């Protein structure tokens, strides 16, 4: 199993790490049983993600995908952020070992969960916009 230089770069110096006390959208996915928990904080202004932070309990790939995913959505409108797929994150990282693909699924879902939370806080039903967010029990990443 080998990580690309890009993965190692994001793992060793992850971008956007930390909590965000004034976030207006927070999403958490995964559980300790799956070995991977991601918590995503977003600050949305005028439908644009002006700031994003994450916390991750997980492997190198989980940390690197969190970092890359936050980079990719920072400054993006919500509609664009929702289009982010795990595949795009993996590509941006120059690939991941096959056994690590599920970690990238989690990053995509964490973003969706944070956006859903944002809509909910705005009094908007997120389901039609964001869709279902699968939990680990339903996950078919393995």
């Amino acid at each position, binding site marked *: 199993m080998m990580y690309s230089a890009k993965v190692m770069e994001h*793992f060793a110096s992850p971008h956007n*790490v930390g909590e965000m006390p004034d976030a207006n959208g927070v999403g958490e996915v995964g559980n*300790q*049983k799956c*070995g991977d928990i991601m918590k995503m904080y977003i600050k949305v202004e005028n439908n644009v993600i002006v700031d994003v932070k994450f*916390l*991750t*309990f997980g492997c*190198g790939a989980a940390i690197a995908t969190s970092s890359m995913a936050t980079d990719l959505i920072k400054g993006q409108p919500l509609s664009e952020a929702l289009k982010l797929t795990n595949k795009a994150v993996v590509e941006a990282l120059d690939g991941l*070992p096959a056994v690590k693909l599920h970690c990238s699924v989690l990053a995509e879902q964490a973003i969706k969960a944070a956006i859903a939370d944002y809509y909910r806080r705005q009094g908007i039903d997120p389901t039609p916009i964001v869709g279902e967010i699968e939990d680990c029990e339903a996950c078919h990443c393995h």
Partner: protein
Amino acid sequence: MDRFVYLDNSATTKVSERVFEAMVPYLTEHYGNPSSIYGIGREAHAAIDEAREKVAKAINAKSREIYFTGCGTESDNWAIKGAARHLAKKGKKHIITSVFEHHAVLHTCQSLEKEGFEVTYLTVDSEGYVSPSDVENAIREDTALVTIMYANNEIGTIQPIAEIGKICRDKKVLFHTDAVQAIGNVRIDVQAENIDMLSLSGHKIHAPKGVGALYVRQGVVIDNFMDGGAQENNKRGGTENLASIVGLGAAMEEAHNGLEEKAAKLTILRDKLIDNLLKIPHTRLNGGRENRLCTNVNISFEGIEGEGLLLLLDLNGIAGSSGSACTSGSLDPSHVLLAIGLEHGIAHGSLRLSLGRYNTEEDVDYALQVIPQVVERLRAMSPVWQEMKEQGLV
């Protein structure tokens, strides 16, 4: 980063210089087939005999009780499948083992279950020990074999082998032990401990990877595993792994000369590591401290995940290993840590450091300087740790 501190000697070890030097002639000029009758063939044969002597001597066995194999895994497969299939002919189709054996034993037992054998997997206590009375109680009329590891590879706990050996001998049940981790760290006496079969592997004791041995007590009959030529007294076909066998012989000799001094030195280093790592809050030692390999440290850090820890240690020049599933790419964390009762979350955050002959106090000091920082950094980015904080737990 130039510093390199290898603390993963339970995964594999560096070939010692003496072993390497012993091997070189057999990788160059002395290339004869040990079965051939001309000069370089006879020489090769003699070299294997000499290695066999050395292996035998180190565990108080007789030379003709030692069979060379391709690895520790082969020794385990052969001992267990060979005994089971042989004794099945006498109606004995029950095997006793423990839940926290190495996969070479566990997966072998599982494959025997598919062949129709029944296997009892004994649980271990929270300190990581098998209870001899559990073994005794599990033995039945149709028990063919008990197989319990000498020392656990992840948490280093040394099992009560002599007691289990005695029970098995009294009950006339074959007793096999996977001593891959114990060899070289514990003085083993197959006769005194009533061991019928014992597996060992070269690469844990500074011989190369890809060579092992199986001790089978004289009089014990098991089926062959590797059918082929007449090598190894007709019991294990295949042209002998000449250079590596010579290396294994040299390594066994080296490991057993001065074993006690080495163990004493390593115990001090081990305890320094354990005592200081336990000072990091929300940290636990896995496996009992009393009967523990002098080489093994296994600590869980709450709130972090093992692979990230290993990668950061690697970036700092430290090689260790983890019971985290993420490392192996599977979802389940180490079956050993689950067996001693750890929750998934904390099992994921465990670190195994394993010492070896070449480690120094400086290595330990360096590790103790790096690890607390790395743990802190990972905790700072962990949602689990943040939550513990919010709940006032830390």
